[in-house]
């Protein structure tokens, strides 16, 4: 077990190094000289040259790369020119909002998805199953940003029930979180359905039936429990997609998280923030994948005791 953990950790560190290298390369390939961008088009050549020297842009690319790696290891990505403070501070200041949004969306997706999946999996190919499967296709096909706008149209512009943008009260998180959760609800529902259908054929379900448990007891006690492993797996694997979805959804609802920060910073060419935000997102995904991998062993006794392998 320790060996597995160490190996996964090493891969995680390697992936982060690769992600950092990729960001470094991308920003160097992008058109436009960073010093000119920082100072604006009216800056004198002397000022540009001075700033280039201060930022180390006049040094060989290898030296720049090594400096980047050294600074990145200390989470130093330079200063954001828009906020005038260290990029990592700006990014970390936005992290909480994104975590709140994605966690709320995950809870909605898991709860609703499990419920829908169980309803559908009870009677495969029955009417409920058909409706749920149609619904999941629809939920995955609709663009989240459009769904968000349509929800605003309904709940804010027409019914006047919920705020459409910003933060503050708990009501503010409802629309963004629901919007973000919809495609993931569909994914969780599909996985749960498959898993429930499979476990209803297992011998232990026959045993449970023969000892007189009701269908709903079997569903919650046996089928649901066994669906948890695939659901946790998929939630872990989908975390990247969820964060990506958050990037778009945050922009719809002016939610002050990492996603809106990334888009603003890319549009304003605030490269230090882009780098810091991208690598923080990468780090979150790497850690969550690691946790999802390791949590199989906690949820599935076959893996835990090694009987499976």
């Amino acid at each position, binding site marked *: 077990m320790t060996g597995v953990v160490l190996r996964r950790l090493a891969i995680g560190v390697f992936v*982060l190094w690769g*992600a950092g290298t990729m*960001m470094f390369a991308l920003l160097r390939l992008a058109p436009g000289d960073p010093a000119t961008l920082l100072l604006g088009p009216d800056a004198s050549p002397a000022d540009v040259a001075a700033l280039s020297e201060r930022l180390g842009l006049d040094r060989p690319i290898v030296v720049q790369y090594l400096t980047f790696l050294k600074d990145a290891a200390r989470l130093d990505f330079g200063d954001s020119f828009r906020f005038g403070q260290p990029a990592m501070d700006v990014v970390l200041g936005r992290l909480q909002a994104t975590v709140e949004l994605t966690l709320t969306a995950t809870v909605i997706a898991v709860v609703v998805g499990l419920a829908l999946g169980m309803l559908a999996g009870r009677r495969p190919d029955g009417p409920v199953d058909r409706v749920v499967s149609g619904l999941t296709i629809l939920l995955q*096909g*609709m*663009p989240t940003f*459009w769904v968000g706008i349509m929800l605003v149209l309904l709940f804010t512009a027409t019914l006047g029930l919920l705020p459409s943008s910003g933060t503050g009260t708990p009501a503010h998180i409802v629309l963004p979180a629901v919007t973000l959760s919809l495609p993931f609800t569909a994914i969780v529902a599909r996985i749960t359905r498959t898993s429930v259908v499979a476990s209803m054929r297992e011998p232990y379900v026959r045993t449970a039936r023969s000892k007189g448990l009701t269908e709903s007891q079997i569903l919650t006690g046996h089928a649901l429990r066994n669906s948890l492993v695939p659901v946790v797996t998929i939630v872990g694997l989908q975390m*990247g*997609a969820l*964060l990506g979805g958050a990037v778009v959804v945050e922009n719809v609802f002016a939610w002050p998280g990492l996603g809106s920060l990334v888009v603003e910073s890319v549009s304003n060419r605030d490269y230090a923030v882009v780098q810091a935000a991208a690598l923080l997102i990468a780090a979150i995904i790497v850690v969550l994948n690691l946790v999802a991998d390791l949590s199989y062993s906690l949820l599935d006794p076959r893996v835990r005791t090694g009987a499976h392998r």
Partner: protein
Amino acid sequence: MTGAITDLAETPPVVRRRWWGFLRWWPAAVVGLYVLVALVGPLLVDYDPVATGLTDRLLPPGATTHDGGVALLGTDPLGRDIFGQVVYGARTSVTIGALTVALSALVGVTVGVVAGYFGRAVDATLSRSVDILLAFPGIVLAIIVAGLFDRSITVVVIALALTGWIPFARMTRAMALTVRDREWVAAARVMGVPRRTIVTRHVLPFVLGPVVALAATDFGLVVLAEAGLSFLGIGLPPTSVSWGQTIATGKEYLSTAWWISAFPGLVLALLVVHVGLLGDQFNSYFHRTGRRGARSTSRRGSTGRGVEGSP
């Protein structure tokens, strides 16, 4: 293609033919309609994305414009026709979708065949590169790449294909691995057929079917991602017409002019849903023939985590 779908209808003896059997064609017909609109629509509908007519601002669907035409789906705050934007947007979406999927499939299949059929070293490099790329959500990477470089269709296509090739590579690799050890491939090897010929003649044909299925699924995702980028105002030049841009315009006018955002999104959602359905049909068809041909498409390949599990 015709053979493929009738075959699907006839093979399973349990399924009785019902009167609604023609619905099988529905997804293909809808997707075909979109492609048709993308190809010829702009020739039939007169729409100028740059011209503005301020007298026709924010007209509701069905209203008459000042020159006597009918704004079928209403107009936007600059007096531009929403129907025209929907038709021209179809061209943008279908073009970018097709180009991106083609690029992704080309790169993915090449990399996958090389990794699956040739050496371990390529395979290891591939799986590590994929790990790195997947550390970023695809849309974030696309936002960064498309945002850094100058706005153009080429940049958007490359930005979207940057992670788009991965599923193709994984699937091709898995297929190549299973086909590699089959008898006829061994026979060809013994007879001294060059490796390149073995790959093109004995390995690639097995991969093509599933690649088509994957391409359909991928097309839907790419169209969604492109609309997302345009919605955020990243990637395409401002002069191009895209559903995402129109939806973004309408966001500011929700309480007065709901039609600006509503229609392009509806059209987009319908396309993605039907492309998904078509992909599912391809999938179930090719999975059956796949099983008949190559003995086992290992579970690893289909779950998409295959590359990592290599020994």
